[in-house]
């Protein structure tokens, strides 16, 4: 592990060299046997990544190592992280707008006697989804689940519909600052009475003149206590439940928006999760994203991306947990030999690593198909289902091998055990995934 050392210059100034001073631990005699490696990463051989993907990962990794990981333990203890600060760093480096639009159709301004055309810069990079996957994978190097989840909400849950269907004005007010990291977004979909069953939400946005009046509440709102705006799903008419909902850009500082509480969870502690109430909140009708009644459809369109994103993220963490378990069990001795030397242990780790690689292959396959324009709902649902289940199995097995230490808060494996449990619940519960897969298999009983 590289050490963090503060250098003193002339005894008065204080300087951090990339938070890590290049101190290397003592080298070891290398054996003649081949080094165990986690897999070939040469750009020429990778299924979906190019040199640019790897350059992106390298740069993002530096940000994680310097600006995020040194503070994770503290943020976990405090139950929140400075979203504005971190998002600004990521946004300035271009990591929050990877597949967002670069610019708009031109606007025409009449200026004195000349007409000038202005391109609305949205600040996105217009890259394909494989770059989002690369970002998500690299964020898996953050030593908790809460911070990547918060970033994922900003980039791939609260903003895709706005990017695709929002008006130019709405994009300028909400999308551009979210891409730059100046505004923190949150997603208002789930409610106390409606999680998996999104169509039964009761929050209403009633049109009165040129305003919506919003009443109701939202639950499980990641970034909720710090967000500047919410991408809100509300009932805007009395039609059938899949056709009467709309997405609205809701500034969080409007009168009537109450952040009732920060929810105390067993995991994802560094991510602040809020319960929010709306009491006659008034928002202009122009804050409607796209068409009225299309909100449910818009949200559904991005589910494939959300799910693949979550899988990419958790795969990296699973690799890390396996590696750290190997390192720990190699030096921890029981009955005069390392824990790792017991066949039950290294066989089990081999099994788990196999499953991780299988899931990774599914991720890359689905991503490759998706960027070519295919519908990967079935594969994405399968990947998410497996991701949640494998994470539970893996964290449980690995924690066991850490023994008493695995039960403490000092190690990554116990944090991963708590954080990863959410994957089978949030973003579409396992049971919902199974239902989707069964639908594609045409095995769901007909009514």
């Amino acid at each position, binding site marked *: 592990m590289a050490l963090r050392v503060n*250098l003193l210059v002339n005894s008065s100034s204080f300087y951090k060299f990339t938070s890590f001073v290049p101190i*290397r631990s003592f080298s*070891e005699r290398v054996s003649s046997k081949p080094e165990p490696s986690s897999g070939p990463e040469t750009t020429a051989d990778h299924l979906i990544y190019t040199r640019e993907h790897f350059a992106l990962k390298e740069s993002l990794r530096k940000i994680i190592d310097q600006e995020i990981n040194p503070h994770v333990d503290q943020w976990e203890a405090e139950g929140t992280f400075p979203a504005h600060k971190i998002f600004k760093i990521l946004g300035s*480096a271009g990591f929050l707008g990877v597949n967002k639009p670069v610019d708009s159709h031109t606007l025409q301004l009449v200026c004195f006697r000349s007409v000038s055309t202005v391109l609305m810069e949205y600040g996105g990079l217009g890259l394909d989804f494989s770059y989002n996957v690369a970002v998500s994978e690299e964020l898996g190097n953050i030593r908790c689940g809460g911070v990547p989840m918060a970033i994922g909400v900003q980039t791939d849950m609260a903003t895709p519909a706005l990017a695709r269907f929002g008006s130019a004005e709405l994009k300028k007010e909400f999308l551009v600052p979210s891409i730059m990291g100046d505004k923190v977004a949150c997603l208002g979909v789930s409610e106390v009475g409606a999680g998996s069953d999104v169509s039964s939400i009761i929050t209403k946005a009633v049109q009165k003149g040129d305003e919506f009046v919003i009443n109701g509440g939202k639950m499980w709102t990641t970034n909720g206590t710090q967000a500047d705006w919410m991408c809100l799903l509300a009932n805007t008419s009395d039609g059938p439940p899949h056709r009467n909902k709309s997405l609205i850009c809701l500034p969080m500082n409007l009168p009537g928006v109450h952040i009732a509480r920060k929810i105390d969870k067993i995991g994802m502690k560094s991510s602040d999760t809020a319960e929010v109430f709306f009491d006659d909140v008034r928002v202009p009708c122009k804050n409607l994203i796209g068409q009225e009644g299309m909100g449910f459809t818009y949200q559904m369109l991005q589910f494939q991306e959300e799910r693949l994103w979550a899988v990419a993220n958790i795969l990296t963490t699973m690799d890390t947990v396996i590696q750290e378990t190997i390192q720990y069990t190699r030096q921890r001795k029981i009955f005069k030999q390392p824990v790792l030397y017991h066949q039950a242990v290294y066989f089990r780790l081999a099994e788990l690593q196999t499953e991780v690689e299988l899931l990774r292959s599914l991720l890359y396959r689905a991503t490759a198909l998706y960027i070519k324009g295919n519908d990967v709902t079935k594969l994405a649902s399968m990947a998410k289902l497996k991701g949640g289940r494998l994470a539970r199995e893996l964290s449980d097995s690995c924690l066991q091998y850490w023994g008493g230490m695995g039960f403490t808060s000092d190690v990554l494996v116990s944090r991963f055990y708590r954080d990863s449990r959410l994957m089978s619940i949030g973003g579409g519960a396992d049971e919902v995934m199974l239902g989707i897969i069964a639908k594609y298999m045409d095995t769901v009983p007909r009514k």
Partner: protein
Amino acid sequence: MSGRVLVGVKRVIDYAVKIRVKPDNSSVVTDGVKHSMNPFCEIAVEEAVKLKEKKLIKEVVAVSCGPQQAQETIRTALAMGADRGIHVEVTGKDYETLGPLQVSKIMAALAKKEDAQLVILGKQAIDDDCNQTGQMTAALLDWPQGTFASEVSFDGDKIKVVREIDGGLETIKIKTPAVVTADLRLNTPRYATLPNIMKAKKKKIANVKPADLGVDLTSRLEVVRVDEPPQRQAGVKVETVDDLVGKLKEAGTV
């Protein structure tokens, strides 16, 4: 003045990697090991890009000597804001024996060929810790040098360099063209932003062979053996100062 800056960037084993010595003690293991740009070279690139942003110079050219993989390091420099790259191809035995003397000959030849106003290098590489290339390059070119720079500014037709020296800081003014080597506190290298990473794709990397530059790569040095540092031994506790002095005398250190 051409307004062109040459920046040397070296591909080294990443600072966080545990170094292993090969079983035959000939060198360290490099196969399959993570490599990155030398941290002091990153600082050098950052300074060059900063000068261009201040419009004090016009073009930043990143140079690296080595095999095919050296291009990755050049691309990182391009992603940080360098305009174009030059890859000096050195492979096999030549690469194994490549050292400051050869690199400085290459840098000197390129500086003349590219009509560079300034050559910025890292003060040393973290693999060999030589701290020679900058100085040798300046000598070969007969240019002034500002080494261990913690601050660089333009002052008319001269460059003001604040140098980190043993006693503190020394400020010198040198005429251009000149060679500057970057020390730790010169700047904090920027993160390569995603837009710049994508832009770097279009930037050109020229391929050059040392022979084209008229450089002879023969080494004057031969590495006889590479060993790890000795394992640190446990200390010994003594009761009194006299015992301590006695033990030190025994060990022959006093």
